[in-house]
């Protein structure tokens, strides 16, 4: 896909096989982490080969951001492994009568077929193909290390296969949990289930297992205490090309409206309805918000097709100066943030959920209003951020109060100084800062 990959047999570069179903031009969750990880290894002198899904999967189904492809380090070689996704097929001529007339029956049958090779609906059949691709890659140029980022969880299988057959060490980047439901905090798959058995085997053989936050690490360390020493937190962080230029709301004339902005995927688990109600309440009862406008940027739902329930909510909110502005390309992120005076962070529940968005938000130095389900792990990350304005709960009054406080912060005379202070705090969360210690440790593992 990118420029030619130069292989020099005399060069000592260690060969990383990086398995990430979602890789540019994907715009799916975790793609920025995948992109940053591949680039960081390449930047550290590794020869990096990525196994990922075909571009068409992202262009046709999940939604794509083709600009992301420009950000892939030219030294990274990308191998697209065929992936069929019948459940997300968009060509209706490929649909059979059963699927059209009895879609639930079709879905049930499809799910059974999917999980024959690997216990993951939708992705299980990919196992054979990515394992074959990994073996071919190892034959072409011996692999020194496999890093697999989940989900989908099937990504763990090539590393396990190369470890079993060729003794190659592997790392599981557990970007998301599998047997733990991160929103409810309860077990999603029982001990002894096929999923739990696969997870236990993957962890037992891994050189390292990475998690995106401390609560996730702690839960898994409790579940697999004998493996705790191999577990590490690699936070999502933000890209090194941020922080961004932000506009100085303190310099705005008193009558000029502040812009509250949300940038990210809006999914059914985020408290969007609560945000709209809080915004409406604030417009009616808080003078700080009376003239303010709100902009929501991002996809509505996990797929390219807008989720109807979310679309209905944003449509309803149009009458209270809250505008849905659609998805934003990665290359337009900086310009989008530059148009905001206050950021609104919406996250669904869970002590285990942080999202990468919180780090990017902090990197701007702007006031951040958080509308989080109780106990969300992002609160732990935001705790030291000097311009954090948390809604005490999800009631309209609490959300409006947090927004009013953020508006005062944005307009305050100390705003530029506070922005600089906030950006300084955020720098510890840069992706490269998060990844560097792990890459160094893995270099020592494969090239002692």
């Amino acid at each position, binding site marked *: 896909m990118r420029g030619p990959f130069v292989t020099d047999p005399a060069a000592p570069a260690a060969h990383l096989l990086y398995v990430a179903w979602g890789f540019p031009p994907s715009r799916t969750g975790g793609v920025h982490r995948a992109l940053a990880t591949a680039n960081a290894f390449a930047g550290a002198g590794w020869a990096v080969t990525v196994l990922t899904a075909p571009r068409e999967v992202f*262009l*046709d*189904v999940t*939604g794509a951001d083709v600009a992301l492809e420009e950000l892939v380090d030219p030294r990274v070689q990308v191998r697209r492994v065929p992936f069929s996704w019948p459940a997300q*097929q*968009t*060509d*209706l*001529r490929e*649909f059979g009568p059963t699927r*059209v*007339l*009895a*879609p*639930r*029956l079709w879905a*049930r049958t499809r799910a059974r077929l999917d999980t024959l090779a690997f216990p993951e609906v939708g992705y299980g059949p990919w196992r054979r193909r990515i394992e074959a691709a990994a073996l071919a890659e190892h034959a072409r140029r011996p692999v020194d290390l496999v890093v697999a980022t989940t989900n989908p969880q099937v990504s763990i299988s090539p590393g396990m296969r190369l470890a079993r057959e060729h003794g190659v060490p592997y790392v599981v980047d557990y970007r998301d949990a599998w047997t733990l439901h991160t929103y409810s905090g309860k077990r999603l798959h029982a001990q002894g289930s096929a999923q739990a058995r696969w997870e236990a085997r993957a962890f037992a053989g891994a050189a390292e297992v990475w998690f995106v936050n401390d609560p996730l690490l702690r839960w898994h360390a409790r579940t697999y205490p004998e493996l705790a020493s191999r577990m590490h937190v690699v936070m999502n962080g933000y890209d090194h090309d941020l922080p961004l230029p932000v506009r100085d709301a303190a310099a705005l004339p008193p009558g000029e409206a502040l812009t509250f902005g949300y940038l990210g995927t809006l999914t059914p688990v985020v408290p969007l309805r609560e945000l709209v109600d809080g915004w409406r309440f604030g417009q009616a009862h808080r003078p700080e918000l009376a003239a303010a406008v709100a902009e929501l940027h991002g996809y*509505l739902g996990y*797929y*390219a*097709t*807008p989720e*109807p*329930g979310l*679309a*209905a909510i*944003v*449509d309803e909110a*149009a009458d209270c100066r809250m505008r*849905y502005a*659609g998805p934003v390309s990665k290359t337009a992120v900086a310009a989008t943030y530059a148009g905001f005076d206050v950021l609104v962070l919406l996250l669904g529940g869970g002590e285990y959920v942080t999202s990468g968005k919180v780090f990017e938000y902090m990197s701007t130095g702007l006031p951040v209003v958080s509308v989080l389900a109780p106990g969300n792990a992002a609160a732990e990350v935001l705790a030291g951020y000097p311009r954090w304005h948390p809604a005490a709960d999800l009631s309209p009054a609490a959300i409006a109060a947090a927004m009013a406080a953020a508006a005062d912060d944005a307009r305050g005379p100390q705003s530029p100084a506070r922005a600089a202070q906030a950006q300084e705090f955020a720098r510890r969360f840069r992706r490269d800062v998060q990844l560097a210690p792990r890459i160094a440790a893995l270099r020592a593992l494969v090239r002692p």
Partner: protein
Amino acid sequence: MNVVLVALGPSAPGDGMVAGVQALRRGGARVVLVSRQPPSPRLLEVLDSALPLPAGGGAAARSAAAAALNRLPKVRIDPDRLAAAWRLSHDLSTRALLDGAQVLVAVDRAAIPAVWFAARRRPQAAALSGLPAAVARYPG
């Protein structure tokens, strides 16, 4: 290129479709919507035209037929969807529209049977699920 969007779900086609319709029109397409619910004002503005799903009767007969079919284990046939498919393909106004289309798009899941049946009788037309799929295939 004539694109017919079909939306038969309970939600009104809303602003979330505006960008997709605009992209198709930038590519030179004429975009018409047939929907069970009226579209939002912003969406209506960017469409070439919008038609309501033709009205139909026989709800009791449809329900009885579906109930009989649904006695089969694990089969859940939605009588409204099949009836809508029938009306879309047999009403004179919408049938002419479908005959002249090069692209048929089921905007929501409820519209899939209708578009699927329509496409079987019109082999020249592409039949897609989801507006983004149409935009991806026919970018502006």
